[in-house]
């Protein structure tokens, strides 16, 4: 891929990268900085991209590494929520808010906002695999490369993440889906 081709192709992934950055940071400013830094590094490191590499996967890997570095700077190490630390009986506060919200019916019409809100309730490690698989369509193997873990871990993590997401979205989605 020539340099102009690379630049054009890289720009096509801007929306996806921003979405992933938002999923990681929950903060517009941080997400914008993250995406900007990702492109800066990508353009500089373009020469290291193997001809048969997946450009989108490579960009996501860079973005996640930049984000991890920033986390380390801030906390002397990534502050992941322990996946197994959440008690099974923990009831998501988000569900209470939805159930008690008088505008819940209105909210339910905005599915994107619902999914986004539910995703934001997931632990970060769960959230990123759901976004990478269900929003961005990466394969398990590609996700493993991006997040730096075995594919088997991606599979099990994704399974648990979807279960939690299912709980968070509640019954309405099943109903909506079957309409």
């Amino acid at each position, binding site marked *: 891929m020539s*340099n102009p081709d690379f*630049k054009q192709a*890289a*720009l096509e992934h*801007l*929306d*996806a990268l*921003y*979405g992933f950055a*938002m*999923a990681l940071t929950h903060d*517009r400013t941080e*997400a*914008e900085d993250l*995406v*900007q830094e990702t*492109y*800066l*590094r990508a*353009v*500089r*490191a*373009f*020469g*290291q991209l193997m001809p048969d590499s997946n450009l989108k996967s490579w960009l996501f890997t860079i973005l996640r590494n930049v984000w991890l*570095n920033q986390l*380390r*700077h801030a906390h*002397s*190490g990534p502050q992941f929520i322990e996946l197994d630390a959440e008690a099974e009986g923990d009831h998501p506060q988000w569900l209470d808010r939805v159930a008690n919200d008088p505008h819940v019916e209105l909210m339910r019409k905005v*599915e*994107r906002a*619902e*999914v*986004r809100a539910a*995703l934001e309730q997931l632990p970060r490690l769960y959230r990123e695999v*759901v*976004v990478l*698989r*269900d*929003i*961005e369509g990466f*394969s*398990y193997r590609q996700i493993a490369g991006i997040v730096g873990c075995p594919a088997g871990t991606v*599979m099990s993590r*994704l*399974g648990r993440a*979807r279960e939690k*997401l*299912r709980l968070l*979205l509640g019954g309405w*989605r*099943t109903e*909506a*889906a*079957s309409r």
Partner: protein
Amino acid sequence: MSETEMTPCDHIRGQIAFYLDDELRGREQAAFEAHLQECQACRQAVADERRWLESVRQARPLYSPPPALRARVEQIVSETPSPHTAPPELRRRIQRFLWPAASTTPRLFRDRRLIALVACLALIAFGGMWYVMMDRVRVPRSPISEFALMAVDTHLRYLRGQLPLEIVSASPAQISGWFAGKVPFSLKLPNYQESSGQEKLYRLEGARLVGFKSDYAAYVAYQMRQRPITLVVTSNSVALPSGGEEIVSKGLKFHYDSIDGLKVITWSDRGLTYALVSDLEERGQQSCLVCHAGTKDREFIESLKPSR
């Protein structure tokens, strides 16, 4: 069949997500689809799961970047200079092949200020230089330190392109400032100016953080005539130099070793521990020896001390 034994349907249900994620292949996929042909309940389970996943996936894109970000990214992409496409290690080998005597040119010795930095950066290569220093003391080798190994590993990872620089700059002041607040010590890189017409003998490329023992160390990349030099600095509360060949000189104890063909020298001074890694050859010893006797060299070391 025991209660704990899985039924064919249990097995299929466990594979539904993999099937819908297009992660089943060959016989597994064929067996899965064959079972669906025969089992209405599993077909329904697959259909339910597919609808649920599709309803989640229909939410894409979750977020849209603001127009200002798009404009900034387009500017980055269009204005950032094209990078070198050859791997750094290959470039280094080719350069060495084309200019085998590059690092021995007499011009190397003309500017004492530059030589001072060259000398400090090239300490790695100069196990022999310590023999001729005034108060040298040599003791037998001991095992290589973890810090030295980390520095060599960092050097090699950078050459392989696995450690992109977090700041790309030839400005020592800018890089020193970048480290402020990021590492638990103060690092001030020296700023040597070449005299008019003087060829620049080394180039500061940039820097990044590297993890070491649950903390961050400072990594600074230099090039001297296309040959990379790595400087890693950490607090001496995190690492102390040890191992290799000990050489005491000018009141400092240096530890020199050769690892995988790379020369590494570590030492501590004023609260910081340093490691220099390069593949510089023996000839560099002479230039180091010349300027190590001068004051500029000591000034360079002074400038790296932590703030108190």
